[in-house]
């Protein structure tokens, strides 16, 4: 039993601290090969994935931030456009109001001047008609009066100059009388 333990411990009677050169060589070669595989393939592949993943995550964040910025820019633009449109609308309304007031004023002015014109025309017409009536009345009344007077007096007042004089005198008297009544 003791022999078995000792032999197990010393691996067949040799000192366990003295290495077997072949063992060392194999371990060294194996380690070197493994190291080569790790350096050449394993680490680069894993690091590539790490970098890609980090980039994907950061890229996603950057993309989201960009989208957010774009969205807020668009919102700003729309708000700006809305404000502009409102201002434009107000401006147009103001303009329309001013224009309407102007048109109204023009129309009023035009109507006033038209009515003044019409009334002036009417006055002139009435005046001229009155003049014509006065003239025609004067002749006709003169004629009728002379005719009547000649009939009553029995004297022919055929002389035009004389009759005109008589009539004028009569009318002047009449007008003087009228003026006296009006006063």
């Amino acid at each position, binding site marked *: *039993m003791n022999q*078995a*333990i000792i032999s*197990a*411990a010393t*691996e067949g009677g040799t000192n*366990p*601290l*003295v*290495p*077997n*050169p*072949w*063992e*060392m060589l*194999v*371990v*060294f070669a*194996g*380690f070197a*090969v*493994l*190291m080569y*595989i*790790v*350096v050449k*393939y*394993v*680490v680069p*592949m*894993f*690091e*590539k*994935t790490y970098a*890609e*993943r980090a980039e*994907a995550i950061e890229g996603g964040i950057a993309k989201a931030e960009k989208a957010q910025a774009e969205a807020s820019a668009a919102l700003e633009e729309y708000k700006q456009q809305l404000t502009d449109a409102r201002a434009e609308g107000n401006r147009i309304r103001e303009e329309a109001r001013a224009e309407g007031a102007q048109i109204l004023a023009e129309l009023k002015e035009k109507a006033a001047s038209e009515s003044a014109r019409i009334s002036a025309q009417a006055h002139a017409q009435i005046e001229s008609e009155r003049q014509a009536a006065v003239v025609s009345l004067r002749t006709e009344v003169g004629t009728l009066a002379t005719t009547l007077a000649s009939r009553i007096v029995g004297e022919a007042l055929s002389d035009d100059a004389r009759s005109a004089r008589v009539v004028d005198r009569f009318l002047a008297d009449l007008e003087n009388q009228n003026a006296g009544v009006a006063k």
Partner: protein
Amino acid sequence: MLLVILSVVIIGTFFVIAARKQQLVPGKLQFAGEAAYSFVRNGIAKDIIGGRDFMKYVPLLFTLFFFILVNNIYGAIPLIQLPTFSHVGGAYVLALIVYVTWIGIGIKRNGLKYFKLATVPTGVPFYILPIVVPIEIISNFLVRPVTHSLRLFATMLAGHLIVMISGAGIEYLVMQENVLLKGASVLVLGGAIAMYMLEALIMVLQAYVFTLLTAIYIEGALHADSH
């Protein structure tokens, strides 16, 4: 010795396959590979060495960890039952690789002044230096590779021995005429299973410790001027 070659094949195949079809959203195999890789990369290299230049040493630490891990776990696999590093040769080789590596890094980083930085601690009164400097030389340049290799080798050999002894003990007890002694073999079996579990833990732990110490040595060589 065939087992060493087998371990290279196992590790190489597994990680190359796991890393080959890389996708941003990993599958099961890729996820396992990435977890193992990032354990060494982030859990050891980045945490211990840190800074910007830890990536340079990730391949070495990664290879060390999985090479030792698989070769240790051989000791927990029935029929194989032989951790490679229960022979001292392999442990010497790995410790020597690490020894050369960290001294090389120290010289490359600090020039020959590195040896002064590594052996003469700052802030120590000059009259103590004759005592401290030899201690530093011995502990850093002579004892360090020895403990580094023997720690791995001794734990593996001890675990191997314990399992072998309990196996032999069970066999011995079962051979006895006395029924009680025969029955006592069950107790030994229970103890052997417990030791087997402990050994499995130590196998993983020693792979981790060896890699961790390597990272600490490299970090010490990189930042020798601040120690």
